[in-house]
């Protein structure tokens, strides 16, 4: 049975769109929403409520819909809880009702409705407590299964999303009469304007009156002609943030089955607006009466929308229930469309429009209310009675249009910290004095009526233009004012009659629930909201929120103004995760940094690992090693210990420091002294935070009297630079020192091993690498393969080693030249894993030991603390807790059984089963020198334990390994090799 009117509406009737709902096929037209198309097909039962699983229909024609929610699309594109009135119909649309089993018509859990007397608000706080173990095992799984609305997709989203940053002079939210007028005024004054409209058509309420179409079309066309105006239909402004920044989501392709190729599904706009006009309209309100949730109950304004815009008659015979004049427009339009008006129940004792309607032959019952709704699953009869309950009459009707008045859509204004004022005139909250550069216009501040709203919008536009200092504004054409006698609406919230009267249709919150909350002391609006879950559903109480507040106010014996509303927070409408995440997901979640030698590593089969943002070679598997990474790591480390290896160390932070006071500055940053460092020499430096904890370490070289070259750890490069800038700019601005990060400008590689000199000498020109000429910690310039290089004789592995740095563009030729020169010595590229192994053998500390907890003393580096002179961290490092003898200190560890494995993350305990941790293992690796696992650890008492035994406990795996405590230098304790 079609409810589609023969003519009218903003549909393209030449385009037939097929769609399915719960597996049944229907047909609609271009211009339909899922709601209007189902209504046109006579479908009234579309959902089940959250708690009682009561049958629910379509209440609204917009994003304020509480009841008509569906799962839209299928598979990886499935979306739960989509309000039908905002789903644009497309060919092939698939939708499923939700929160019902086995079917919408026969839903087992509708038994909850029969049990509802046992399930009042907050019933779950009073029960499910015995026996205690039953909560997780029995009660909660049941609750979890029955709660929730729709099913989300389980797969990754096949669509993608885009982010757009925008600036404008005036952002206008909403394109009704007020928004269009404001945008037009601002545009004509030369302002850059962005106009956002959540609907797919611009016009808001103008779309419901054919008489206003000319003005709407002309105004939109005039805006479209302006090059500085951006019109964004299908775009919801969801949040109002600091500094007049607003977030919006443009639904680029949600009205299509799939986004076209290369198009995003949605686009996230961050809009920085100099001025904002909020023309977001108003939400029509429910009235609480028994049965107000029944399919067939439709808000009066929504019914008008279905008639005029979608050419659907929402029923055959209607009762209209109102406290205001606007609903009469709906009644008249319904009648004009051939819907019989059984009666209008107007709560007001008298109204001009009531008299007019009576003269037109409509049965208007003034001073009357709806006390109940009869029928099976939807509206079949409506009982209308006097306000005192007398003269009740049951009228046959399949449609009940309700209007409890209109509440300005103040979500965004409130988010921008605008205070909310109570208006008796409209019985609603309106925005007060704005705090940010913003103003509300039209229905969004309680100015109803098209002409009035347009005029108010123009005023707001002019105010924005004036605030921008753009000068004169042109007059624009406005819709003509229609003089019409009217009667003020009467605040009316609830019909007290027997039966469930809902204030929140989605969460099944009734007026009795609100009163129960009040009786139990949850009388503050926030408590009542949280106790009953009122206005916390996906619609955020847009239709019933104020009704609940009114019921609470009555229970408290106070005004609604005194009760207030819960705080409005983002989002004005729900926002999908994906659109805000944008492209920064999956492999693009974080940027990747690659060294200048990355391509070489890839060509040579390196396995990579993340080091912060960096990708570093972990190891280079050779044939036969594919199955066991240890084979590669141990081979590479052995090559360094026995011959020569080469490692890409470009990720170390590098900072070029210059200026007359560079040495003094470094003296204050590091615990040791750099101003005395000779030119052409490097020195290891230790840096503390101001609280005395070790911050970073690295070698710094002196290239000239006023020129140093610093290195930092890979992890701390950015933080060290910031730390230096803070001190140079704010603490010691008098120092003549300049510096900048050159990490990416230099590629560096470390050639290490007893044959490093032999290998390098062949490749390096212009520098004598002989021990006497270029001793440990020497620095010099040279060439390799004709490329400029800087050579540092420094070592992390503990072997004879040279670090060769070259401008990044020369990285590959230099690396290749060294590889070629070292070939006869078996030069082997080694990765971070072997590097880690070598430094553990050598007892050098790294990230695992510098975790932000350790002092220089803890690490055995107290000799690095200079006796005289200021440096960052010096004073607070002396606090008693940081010099206490019982603090854990760095030790070496070896399993007593040479075959046993040592694990980092183990704790050191005196005996198996002992719960007292004496310390922990920071790093562990198999040694290539010692033929057993070795480790470093932090141990309370430190060297007092040398040569004693403990257990490395790893209770997560039930493992205890007996270990001997040693000096942290597992190899070359005398440090002879680096000087060889």
């Amino acid at each position, binding site marked *: 049975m079609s409810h589609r009117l023969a003519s009218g509406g903003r549909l393209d009737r030449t385009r037939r769109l097929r769609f399915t709902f719960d597996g049944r096929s229907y047909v609609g037209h271009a211009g339909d929403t899922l709601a209007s198309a189902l209504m046109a097909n006579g479908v009234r039962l579309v959902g089940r409520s959250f708690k009682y699983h009561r049958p629910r229909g379509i209440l609204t024609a917009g994003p304020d819909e509480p009841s008509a929610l569906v799962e839209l699309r299928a598979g990886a594109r499935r*979306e739960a*809880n989509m309000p039908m009135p905002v789903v644009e119909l497309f060919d092939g649309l698939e939708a499923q009702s939700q929160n019902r089993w086995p079917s919408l018509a026969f839903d087992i859990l509708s038994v909850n409705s029969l049990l509802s*007397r*046992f399930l*009042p608000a907050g019933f779950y*706080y*009073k*029960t*499910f*407590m015995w026996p*205690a173990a039953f*909560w*997780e095992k029995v009660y*909660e799984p049941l609750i979890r299964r029955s709660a929730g*609305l729709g*099913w*989300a*997709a389980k797969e*990754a989203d096949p*669509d993608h999303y885009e982010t757009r940053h925008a600036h404008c002079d005036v952002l206008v939210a909403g394109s009704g009469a007020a928004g269009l007028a404001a945008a037009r005024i601002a545009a004509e004054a030369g302002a850059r304007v962005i106009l956002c409209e959540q609907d797919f058509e611009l016009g808001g309420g103008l779309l419901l009156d054919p008489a206003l179409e000319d003005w709407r079309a002309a105004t939109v066309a005039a805006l479209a002609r302006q090059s500085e105006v951006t019109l964004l239909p299908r775009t919801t402004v969801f949040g109002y*943030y600091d500094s007049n920044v607003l977030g919006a989501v443009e639904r680029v392709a949600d009205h299509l089955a799939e986004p076209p190729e290369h198009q995003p599904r949605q686009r996230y706009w961050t809009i920085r607006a100099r001025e904002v006009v909020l023309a977001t309209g108003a939400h029509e309100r429910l009235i609480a009466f028994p049965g107000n949730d029944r399919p067939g109950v439709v808000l009066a304004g929504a019914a008008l929308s279905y008639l005029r815009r979608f050419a659907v008659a929402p029923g055959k015979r209607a009762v209209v229930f109102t406290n205001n004049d606007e609903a009469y427009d709906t009644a008249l339009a319904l009648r004009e469309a051939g819907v019989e008006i059984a009666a209008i129940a107007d709560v007001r004792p008298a109204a001009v429009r009531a008299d007019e309607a009576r003269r037109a032959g409509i049965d208007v019952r003034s001073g009357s209310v709806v006390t109940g709704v009869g029928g099976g699953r939807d509206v079949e009869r409506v009982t209308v009675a006097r306000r005192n309950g007398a003269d009740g009459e049951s009228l046959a009707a399949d449609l009940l249009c309700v209007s409890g008045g209109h509440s300005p859509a103040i979500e965004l204004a409130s988010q921008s910290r605008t205070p909310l004022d109570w208006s008796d005139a409209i019985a609603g909250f309106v925005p007060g004095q704005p705090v940010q550069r913003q103003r509300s216009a039209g229905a969004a501040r309680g100015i109803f009526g098209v002409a009035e709203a347009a005029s108010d919008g123009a005023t707001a536009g002019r105010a924005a233009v004036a605030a921008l200092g753009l000068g004169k504004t042109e007059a624009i054409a406005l819709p003509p004012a229609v003089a019409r006698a009217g009667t003020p609406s009467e605040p009316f919230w609830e019909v007290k009659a027997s039966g469930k009267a809902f204030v929140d249709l989605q969460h099944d919150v009734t007026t*009795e629930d609100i009163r*129960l909350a009040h009786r*139990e002391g*949850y009388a503050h609006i926030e*408590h009542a909201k949280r*106790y009953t879950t009122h206005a916390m559903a*996906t619609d*955020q109480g847009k239709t019933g929120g104020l009704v609940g507040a009114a019921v609470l106010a009555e229970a408290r014996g106070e005004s609604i103004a005194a009760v207030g509303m819960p705080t409005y*927070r983002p*989002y004005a409408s*729900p926002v*999908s*995760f*994906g659109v805000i*995440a*944008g492209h*920064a*997901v*999956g*492999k693009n*979640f*974080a940027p990747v940094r690659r060294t200048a030698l990355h391509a070489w590593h890839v060509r040579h089969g390196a396995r990579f690992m*993340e080091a912060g943002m960096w990708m570093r070679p972990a190891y280079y598997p050779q044939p036969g090693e594919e199955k066991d990474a240890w084979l590669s790591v141990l081979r590479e480390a052995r090559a360094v210990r026995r011959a020569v290896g080469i490692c890409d160390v470009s990720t170390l932070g590098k900072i070029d420091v210059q200026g007359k006071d560079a040495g003094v500055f470094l003296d204050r940053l590091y615990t040791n002294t750099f101003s005395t460092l000779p030119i052409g020499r490097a020195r290891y430096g230790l840096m503390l935070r101001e*609280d*005395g*904890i070790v911050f970073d370490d690295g070698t710094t070289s002196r290239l000239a009297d006023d020129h140093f070259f610093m290195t930092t750890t890979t992890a701390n490069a950015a933080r060290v630079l910031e730390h230096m800038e803070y001190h140079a700019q704010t603490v010691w601005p008098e120092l003549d020192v300049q510096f900048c990060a050159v990490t990416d400008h230099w590629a560096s590689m470390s050639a290490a091993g007893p044959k490093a000199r032999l290998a390098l000498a062949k490749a390096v020109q212009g520098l004598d690498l002989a021990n006497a000429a270029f001793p440990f910690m020497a620095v010099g310039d040279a060439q390799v393969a004709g490329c400029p290089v800087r050579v540092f004789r420094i070592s992390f592995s503990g072997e004879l080693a040279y670090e060769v740095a070259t401008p990044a563009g020369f990285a590959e030729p230099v690396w290749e030249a060294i590889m070629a020169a070292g070939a006869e010595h078996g030069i082997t590229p080694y990765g971070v894993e072997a590097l880690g192994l070598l430094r553990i053998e050598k007892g050098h500390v790294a990230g*695992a030991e510098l975790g932000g907890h350790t002092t220089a003393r803890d690490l055995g580096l107290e000799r690095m603390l200079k006796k005289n002179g200021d440096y960052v961290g010096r004073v607070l490092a002396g606090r008693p807790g940081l010099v206490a003898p019982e603090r854990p200190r760095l030790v070496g560890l070896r399993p007593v059984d040479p075959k046993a494995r040592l694990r*980092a*993350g*183990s*704790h050191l*305990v005196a005996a198996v089963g002992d*719960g007292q*941790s004496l310390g*922990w293992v920071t790093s562990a690796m198999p040694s290539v020198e010692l033929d057993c696992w070795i480790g470093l650890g932090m141990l309370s008492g430190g060297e007092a334990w040398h040569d004693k035994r403990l257990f490395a*406990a*790893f*209770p*997560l795996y039930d493992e205890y390994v007996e270990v001997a405590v040693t000096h942290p230098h597992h190899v070359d304790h005398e440090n002879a090799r680096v000087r060889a």
Partner: protein
Amino acid sequence: MSRYSAFQLFVNAFTGHRSWPRAWRDPAPKPAYDVVIVGGGGHGLAAAYYLAKEHGITNVAVVEKGPIGLGNTGRNTTIVRSNYMFPQNHHFYEWSLKLWEGLEQDLNFNAMVSQRGVLGLFHSDAQRQVFARRGNSMRLSGIDAELLDRDQVRAFVPLVDLDNGRFPVMGGLLQRRGGTARHDAVAWGFARAADRRGVDIIQHCEVTGIRVAGNRVQGVETTRGFIGAKKIGLAVAGNTSRLAQMAGISLPIESHVLQAFVSESLKPMIDCVVTFGAGHFYISQSDKGGLVFGGNIDGYNSYAQRGNLPTVEHVWSAGVTMIPALSRVRVLRQWGGVMDMTMDGSPIICRTPVENLYIDGGWCYGGFKATPAAGWCHAHTIARDAPHEFNRHFTIDRFREGLMIDERGAGPSPWLQ
């Protein structure tokens, strides 16, 4: 009659639930109390409850500037856990978890403590080692912890993308006894139970000053007049440094805003609490079906209870990276809470330089899970004028003494924590 049970619910159903008494009274303040607790959040109400229950001190008022439970108690992501690294912390939090485990029966109020597990994912060897150290530390102290490999993670949270293309998941540290609780109910449950033991809960009563004479507290100045007090306990998360300042005490605390989010209600998709290790993101699903999630603090001093978009973008990106199926889920609300960020990330429950003034604060973003034990320890410290073993380390002096409890190693830089 006032006891809650399935039976009472049944009986009341036949009288239209008209006989349920107020959950707590609404008394006018008396001129003086033995103890005044400032702050009617979970912590303050718990302190009052345990003062009455454990120490027999019932002449107690809780004064709250607004309605109870609407500060951080009503703004957090409801997680309970005790998976800390340092013994100074995990003994305390384990005691808290034990109190959570018996809370409903103790309070006769269902706070829906739900031990469905807290899982932290790791993405590198270095992270695995830190998690292992933490898990082993917990196990040595008798706290449950399990180290999961990739397959076990997949089985536990099937929607997590183990190979996200950037920071693959290598495994996770699971505490099965961790989980969530219904945050509002915690405040209400403690309030009702404290009230029944005689505690006055005084709402809409803002403290404007702390009267001190001879370095000893005399009472509090409030918007409802002076209220005398032999002892005062502060439990005013987010505003601890402001209130302490009223008594002339400077605290090593900055107030920062932390945002949290909830999605629309969905059928079950995530059973436990799961934390991304490669970005700031954690998520769980409430019994009602909403996905509750959050990330890092915004990173600037703020008392605004609302945050800004950059943090939102990072958190949601991390979310979709960890669980790609979140992409089409729609988020309903975001909000912010004001966190007392201490300079080592650990709390303060101690006596102060002013006699008979006590502080429970500095919870950073971890105060909810601590609620029962913080109240319990605060009550103990007030009643005995000495800390319990569990909160012995949570002093103000630890910073001066160099005894920071810095799990993350971020140092005195709250904006980095």
